[in-house]
């Protein structure tokens, strides 16, 4: 697989972009899927077979193998985390996101005191892993503000990860020095021409800068780097193919970093764009299974974008981390006055509280893990 290892993932991406993946996916046969299922170490072609339409007839054996691998490498545990949205000021105009600057809404940025209150509220549930999120605004939420946020959060949590706009390696290193251990950054779509259409204005237009951000974060000594595509924007099979390739690239180049992926699906939001490609439950399942079989140690996170029933069913198939008790609006946990006119980045489909989520996990035979890190290690 190291034949894909290039200086930057963008080079790998360019080399792969020319191939007709649609044709390759359509050409994969049931026999290819069965062969992939027999292998211990899967090749990229095996991964492609597992994402193909032909594999849809093999979801059960794929699920059996995925569950066995997940149990072996991650045990009967699910790590829980919560997001904290600190600012929804945004200079971008992503067609699929409610934080888009085109949505003329009142914006909000939390003061450090408010963040402290939100953090105390979340930490009160026992959660020790927090994910800090902001919209992209160098003016309202610059790196200095993020550093201040981390200094507040570190008083409450064992692990602080970020999901913010792409930064330089130097800025990532600065945040790592403050104790940030994880980076989540979704490419949204790996189709560069569609990416340009979906991001008509703002700094996010730079496809390559975003694509290379995970490797900058890894180079800056982040512990965990999570990638993903927002499914529903383009053909999901090709997107997951690229997510798998990207994850594999990062694993090859940064063996000490834990690489993770997510399969977020487009949710209703304040805006009109609903995505052009439908992604059914069956497709999400196939995506998770293919990723698990291709990359057995890949962390796979599942957010509250999906409803409780579907989330529960996905747990044994390869999920390792779940957000819970989430609020996706700024100040949503403890600032009720603000919450009334606040708007969420996406609609939450699973609104169970942390204790409810923990009880459900235990019922399903899983240990909800609230702490799995030592701050500042």
């Amino acid at each position, binding site marked *: 697989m190291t034949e894909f290892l290039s200086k930057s993932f963008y080079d790998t991406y360019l080399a792969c972009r020319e191939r007709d993946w649609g044709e390759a996916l359509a050409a994969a046969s049931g026999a290819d899927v069965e062969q992939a299922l027999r292998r211990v170490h899967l090749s990229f072609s095996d991964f492609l077979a597992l994402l193909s339409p032909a594999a849809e007839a093999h979801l059960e054996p794929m699920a059996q193998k995925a569950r066995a691998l997940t149990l072996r490498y991650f*045990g009967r545990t699910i790590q829980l985390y919560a997001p904290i949205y600190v600012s929804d000021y945004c200079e971008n105009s992503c067609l699929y996101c409610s934080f888009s600057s085109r949505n003329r809404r009142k914006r909000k940025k939390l003061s450090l005191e408010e963040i402290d209150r939100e953090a105390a509220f979340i930490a009160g549930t026992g959660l020790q892993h927090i994910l800090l999120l902001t919209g992209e605004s160098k003016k309202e939420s610059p790196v200095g503000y993020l550093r201040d946020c981390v200094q507040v959060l570190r008083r409450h949590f064992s692990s602080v990860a970020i999901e913010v706009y792409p930064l330089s390696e130097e800025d990532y290193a600065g945040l790592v020095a403050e104790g940030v251990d994880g980076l989540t950054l979704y490419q949204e779509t790996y189709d560069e021409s569609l990416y340009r259409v979906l991001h008509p204005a703002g700094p996010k237009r730079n496809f390559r800068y975003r694509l290379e951000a995970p490797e900058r974060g890894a180079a800056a000594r982040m512990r965990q780097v999570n990638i993903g595509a927002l499914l529903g924007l383009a053909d999901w099979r090709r997107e997951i193919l690229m997510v798998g390739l990207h994850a594999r690239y990062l694993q090859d180049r940064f063996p000490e970093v834990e690489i993770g992926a997510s399969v977020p699906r487009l949710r209703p939001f304040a805006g009109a764009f609903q995505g052009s490609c439908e992604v059914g439950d069956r497709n999400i399942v196939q995506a998770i299974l293919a990723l698990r079989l291709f990359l057995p*140690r890949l962390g796979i996170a599942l957010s509250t974008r999906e409803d409780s029933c579907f989330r529960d069913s996905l747990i044994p198939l390869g999920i390792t981390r779940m957000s819970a008790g989430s609020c996706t609006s700024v100040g949503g946990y403890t600032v009720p006055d603000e919450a009334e006119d606040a708007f969420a980045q996406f609609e939450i489909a699973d609104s169970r509280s942390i204790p409810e989520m923990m009880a459900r996990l235990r019922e399903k035979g899983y240990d909800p893990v609230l*702490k799995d890190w030592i701050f500042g290690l």
Partner: protein
Amino acid sequence: MEDLLEIGGKKIACRLFLGTGKYAGNAQMREALLAAQADVVTVALRRVESGAMAESILDYIPPSCTVMINTSGARNAAEAVRIARLARASGAGDWIKIEVIADSRYLLPDNLETLKATETLVKEGFITFPYMSPDLSMARRMADCGAAAVMPLGSPIGTNRGVRTRELVEILIREISVPIIVDAGLGKPSDACQCMEMGCAAVMVNTAVAVAPDPVEFARAFSLAVKAGRLAYRTGMPGSAAEARASSPLTGFLRDHD
């Protein structure tokens, strides 16, 4: 005569060391430790809750067990040393399983960094158990600098593939003066038994027990297998016929001569 393993100033009856990760819950983990009559258990410091209000994994460890904190999460010697010091400061004791892993795909240990951490921690008075890829020179250096035992892997963590490193582990058993404890990759009680028959001082198991359909009974099965293997080793293993006996003896003609 009692067959106790003397290590780190303690006398240990159960030569099955157990891990505490990957279980469906702390209560189940505790039951498994009790079923195996485990004397030594390893706990990742990263999983230990520090707040007074939080339920701690350590509360579920039977008081008869010695806790060996492992340095899971350390990517280099400095981080392993930091975790060990934090463990000591938090009252978790001096027994440290040194785990330095800079490879997230196979979780194979970095022997050089592990050695460096061992040297530092021994000087600071820790009882150290370095987890390593079986390598004679490294194991010698670890023993020479004062490791309480050396823990070579049987196969990569979580793979349940058994003692794939058998040839190398056998060399360590013959050549290294400190106890050899096979850690990682043991998937079945028979794998553990095999290690004990070979002459390992103990074995360490986590995944196979924690994710078994019935972890408690499987812990008991492992414990029995370790006892059986140890007993067989002490009794002396009979030589085995390396090859099947030929049905027509090659020297049969000598009889015809007579």
